[in-house]
């Protein structure tokens, strides 16, 4: 029962990684930072910009002036004229403050304009009125569209999109490996017999844990050094001006954050290594010794679950929830954990089907596949249940500091936010409900891959609204980075599978697992 990664698999995974990197690099150089228009009236637009000042503000102004001149208008950026100046400025400031307090834990926009649109040629009063009401789209709408589409935009200077994506992918793939480690520990702690023939697959998946850890550590180091602004509470200027964050400083401060991260990663890495080593050693031990090893793993499995129960919650607060520093949800840890577990289960299923297809898993029968399918089905419900519980309680109570989390997501991420939920809930419910589809390869592969991507978008929706606000985009950068990570992850998993026999020959429950019948 040996497995060696085939040349074809190597080519596919590394190819995926290579193409992904290429797309990533192309996408990287086409990043823009968006300016945010609010249409105030037919001839007034309020624009704000929240990012770092990459190129000169005046260059962008000139660009906008030029684009609107082509349509026959000229722009007044709120700092010209007599009467409008004060009024415009006040409105802008009010607007800005409101925005910063509710939506972002940042102080105020980098700059904002109160633009008045005038006709280039002097026109009669009648023509003006006709223009305002008669046309399909008002000039302010066209101008706003240019900002929204990114036709007029700042170039990205601090790679916020890049860092946010790194966090999304790092956390997603870290979560898959961690989910496999969790499930392995659960399998030992509950003395389960059925899944023994799948344990080596879980071991291989959890072996890829360092990939996600390294990426996350890179993101955290950059955040600590101020190279990205993912965590607003890491910015002392923000903390000093923000009472809500100030109140959380006892928990959210850099030294304590790093102590926690080192604890999590240290404990996870230690258990991952220990389980892998012990189970590999077990293969060459005599029966008595192997049984003793098994009971040791049984106890360590239970111990790991204790750590995991606490760490999975606090970890999700630290890595994800603290991005929206003002916001909090007591369900968040469970919600994140259910997503992690489900993604890991899909990965276990996919690797099992791949190995079975290659003829490497002679003892895995349709009952094992059926049972993993049941997990995929059940965990989809667990995730949907927690997602909805969190959503409904916050939606119903409608407390401003809580509900802002969903307001941002529904206003700016509406499609992916709801589409992601519908896909991750409805698809498994309809297509994995019957026992036959849980054993059917085409169904499992199709549904599995769709909800796998669905759960990537879940992480996307957790991170992006807090780091990029309305300025998110989905393009080559995102696709490329996902492909790079997926290719690397699968390559590492397949590589790890080759390091030991695919069956734990000395596992006391091996016989039971071989005859597993669901």
């Amino acid at each position, binding site marked *: 029962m040996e497995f060696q990664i085939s040349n074809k698999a190597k080519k596919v995974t590394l190819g995926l990684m290579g193409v992904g990197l290429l797309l990533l690099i192309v996408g990287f150089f086409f990043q823009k930072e968006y300016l945010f228009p609010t249409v105030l009236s037919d001839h007034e637009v309020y624009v704000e910009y929240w990012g770092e000042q990459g190129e000169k503000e005046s260059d962008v102004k000139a660009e906008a002036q030029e684009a609107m001149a082509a349509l026959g208008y000229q722009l007044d950026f709120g700092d010209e004229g007599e009467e409008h100046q004060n009024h415009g400025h006040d409105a802008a400031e009010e607007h800005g403050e409101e925005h910063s307090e509710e939506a972002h834990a940042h102080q105020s926009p980098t700059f904002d304009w109160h633009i008045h649109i005038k006709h280039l040629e002097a026109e009669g009063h009648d023509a003006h009125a006709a223009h305002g009401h008669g046309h399909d789209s008002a000039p302010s709408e066209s101008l706003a569209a240019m900002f929204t589409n990114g036709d007029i935009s700042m170039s990205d200077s601090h790679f916020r999109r890049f860092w946010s994506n790194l966090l999304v992918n790092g956390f997603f793939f870290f979560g898959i490996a961690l989910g496999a480690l969790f499930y392995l520990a659960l399998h030992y702690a509950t003395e389960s017999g059925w899944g023994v023939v799948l344990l080596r697959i879980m071991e291989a998946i959890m072996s890829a844990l360092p990939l996600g850890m390294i990426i996350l550590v890179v993101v955290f180091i950059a955040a600590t050094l101020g190279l990205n602004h993912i965590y607003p509470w890491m910015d002392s200027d923000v903390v000093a001006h923000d009472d809500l964050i100030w109140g959380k400083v006892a928990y959210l401060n850099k030294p304590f954050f790093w102590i926690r991260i080192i604890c999590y990663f240290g404990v996870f890495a230690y258990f991952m290594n220990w389980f892998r080593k012990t189970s590999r050693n077990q293969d060459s031990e005599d029966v008595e010794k192997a049984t003793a090893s098994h009971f040791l793993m049984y106890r360590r499995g239970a111990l790991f679950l204790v750590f995991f129960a606490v760490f999975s919650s606090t970890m999700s607060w630290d890595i994800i929830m603290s991005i929206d520093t003002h916001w909090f949800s007591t369900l968040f840890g469970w919600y994140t954990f259910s997503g992690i577990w489900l993604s890991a289960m899909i990965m276990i299923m996919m690797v099992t089907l791949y190995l079975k297809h290659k003829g490497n898993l002679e003892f895995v029968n349709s009952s094992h596949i059926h049972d993993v399918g049941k997990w995929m089905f059940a965990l989809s419900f667990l995730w949907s249940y927690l997602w*909805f519980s969190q*959503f*409904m309680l916050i*939606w*119903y*109570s*409608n407390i401003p500091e809580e509900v802002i989390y969903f307001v941002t997501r529904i206003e700016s991420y509406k499609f992916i936010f709801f589409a992601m939920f519908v896909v991750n809930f409805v698809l498994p419910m309809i297509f994995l*409900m*019957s*026992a036959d589809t849980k054993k059917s390869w085409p169904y499992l592969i199709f549904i599995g891959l769709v909800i796998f991507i669905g759960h990537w978008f879940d992480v996307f929706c957790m991170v992006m609204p807090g780091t990029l606000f309305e300025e998110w985009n989905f393009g080559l950068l995102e696709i490329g980075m996902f492909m790079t990570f997926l290719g690397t992850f699968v390559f590492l998993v397949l590589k790890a599978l080759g390091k030991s026999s695919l069956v734990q020959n000395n596992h006391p429950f091996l016989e039971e697992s071989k005859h597993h*019948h*669901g």
Partner: protein
Amino acid sequence: MTDKVIYAMYDDDDVTKEACQSLVDNGVHVADVFSPFPIHGIDPIIGIKHTRLGIAAFMYGITGLLLAIIATRYFMVSDWHGINIGGKPNFSYLENIPSFVPILFEFTVLCAAHGMALTYFLRNKTLPGMPARNPDPRTTDDRFVVEVRLAENSNFSLDQLNDMIKETGIVEIDEKTIK
């Protein structure tokens, strides 16, 4: 028409399973197995058809969901139109659907569970008060009984069947005539 029935009793689920397998391999049709608990993997051996209880449960669930939708819509939107609960006035069902999801979910589960349980009892004729159909009360405790009917095994004589059954690991064997 009278029929002879043989009841073979075992004291272990695995032995029962092996016995059924050997009988079936010899071409015997096993009518039923009585057991205090479900024996995994015995259904395909004795050729029991896959249960349709799941489909029934799905139907009951759908019924419950529809009933709950009709009820909440009638109570909260049609009848008491626009009543303001917790700042969420019920003017439109669609806009307010998240607040109804818990009851929709619970009623779906209620109908599916109760419907499924009742169907199960009815189909097995085991509603409370119905006469017990197991041949020996010990099959509710720690014994397993395999039922073989003569009429369903016309290739064999009663003696042949008895001999084959005695070769398996039985603890008791009993014969009855049913009408």
